[in-house]
């Protein structure tokens, strides 16, 4: 019974092409969402480090709000709510904007922590050597900041790739969506299991790498 409805080889094979198309979409989504999130997060982190309160406080407030709203809520709001205001973003647009705002906020927090972990003396020394402000940020502070928070960056990137599965809710044909289509056609849960296997194969190396990075970080702190 279990094997029949959960691990049917014929159904797995038949669903494979559909799932493969989904996997390609998932990878494309990840390639779109990760740079969007990193770009938005980096910009927000650099801006929230500026001395002007009028920039810093509203930005930190926004970051906290987008960290408080579950990404699925944000996505549904953009996809199903905004058309009422005459703004139809479509599935890809809604997913891209939701990721920009949500994962951007998470990346911003991480970059902020990283930038704060670099001693002030570094920036002052670089200024004293005659580097311009943007050069100080780009060549002196950021490389050290990124090194200090690398495990968190990798961890968040893994979360972003996992989060692309939310796009199935707005009918974007990524891996989970394709698996559910195949399931509803075949009345059999095998395609979902195969999709889970795809996710695992795709992301396991990332999890292992992360484990090693985290262990090294803890060992370094001892």
């Amino acid at each position: 019974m279990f094997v029949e409805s959960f691990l049917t080889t014929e159904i797995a094979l038949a669903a494979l092409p559909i799932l493969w198309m989904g996997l390609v979409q998932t990878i494309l989504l990840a390639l779109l969402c990760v740079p969007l999130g990193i770009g938005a997060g980096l910009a927000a982190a650099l801006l929230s480090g500026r001395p002007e309160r009028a920039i810093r406080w509203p930005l930190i407030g926004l970051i906290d709000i987008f960290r408080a709203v579950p990404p699925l809520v944000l996505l549904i709001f953009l996809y199903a709510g905004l058309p009422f205001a005459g703004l139809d973003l479509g599935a890809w647009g809604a997913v891209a904007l939701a990721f920009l705002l949500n994962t951007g906020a998470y990346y911003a927090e991480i970059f902020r922590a990283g930038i704060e972990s670099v001693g002030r003396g570094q920036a002052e020394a670089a200024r004293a050597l005659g580097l311009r402000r943007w050069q100080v940020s780009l060549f002196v502070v950021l490389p050290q900041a990124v090194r200090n928070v690398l495990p968190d960056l990798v961890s968040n990137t893994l979360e972003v790739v996992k989060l692309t599965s939310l796009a199935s809710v707005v009918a974007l044909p990524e891996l989970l969506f394709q698996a559910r289509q195949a399931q509803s056609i075949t009345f059999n849960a095998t395609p979902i299991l195969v999709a889970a296997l795809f996710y695992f194969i795709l992301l396991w190396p990332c999890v292992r790498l992360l484990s090693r990075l985290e262990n090294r970080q803890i060992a370094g702190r001892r």
Partner: protein
Amino acid sequence: MSGLDAFLFSFLNARVAAEYWPKIVDGLGVTIVLALLVILAGLALGLGLAVLRALGIRPLNWAIIFLVDVFRALPPLVLIVLIYFGLPAAGLSFSGFGATWLALTLVLMAFAEEIFWAGICAVPKGQWEAGRALGLRFLPTLGRIVLPQAIRIAVPPLTNRTIAITKGTALGSVVAVAEILGAAQSGMAFSGNPTPLTLGAIAYILLFLPVVVAGRWVETRFRWKR
């Protein structure tokens, strides 16, 4: 109607809000209960696995590491769908609530195990040796000397991870759990107006913004001194 009026009519419509806010409040209750159940079970299981791993039995440790890796690699939504649609085929039926609870609990268990284990590893070896030298057995040394220190180390990363996973309760709407998002979506479908969704988003912000701000405070308060 001016632009602003039209916008308010759609997104903060008083009539629709008056009709649907009790549903959203019910959803808020479901979200809070689900979140608390996930946090309780997930943290307890994670701590249990970390303690098992501290016993140092090789094959057992490999099994734990693999289990943790699986639930760190799979997206929570995939797990929920798999449990809800897949497990009935194996004779195990879950309600939407049960499936969401189980999936999020397993995910939190995996992350919590990693963080507790990292905390245990970060306690200096001398603490173990001192405990043993004082005549304490393995388990009392672990429970009374190492774990209290390990848990303190684990608090900041664990807080943020727990908040992130708790927000996953919104995924329950996909398998028909009437939590905040589910209630808001059905309200939107019935009224043909997105106001319930606005209310839902406000409910989430009211619920999680204090938690996010508190998490930021905990993180700086308990941060490792370098």
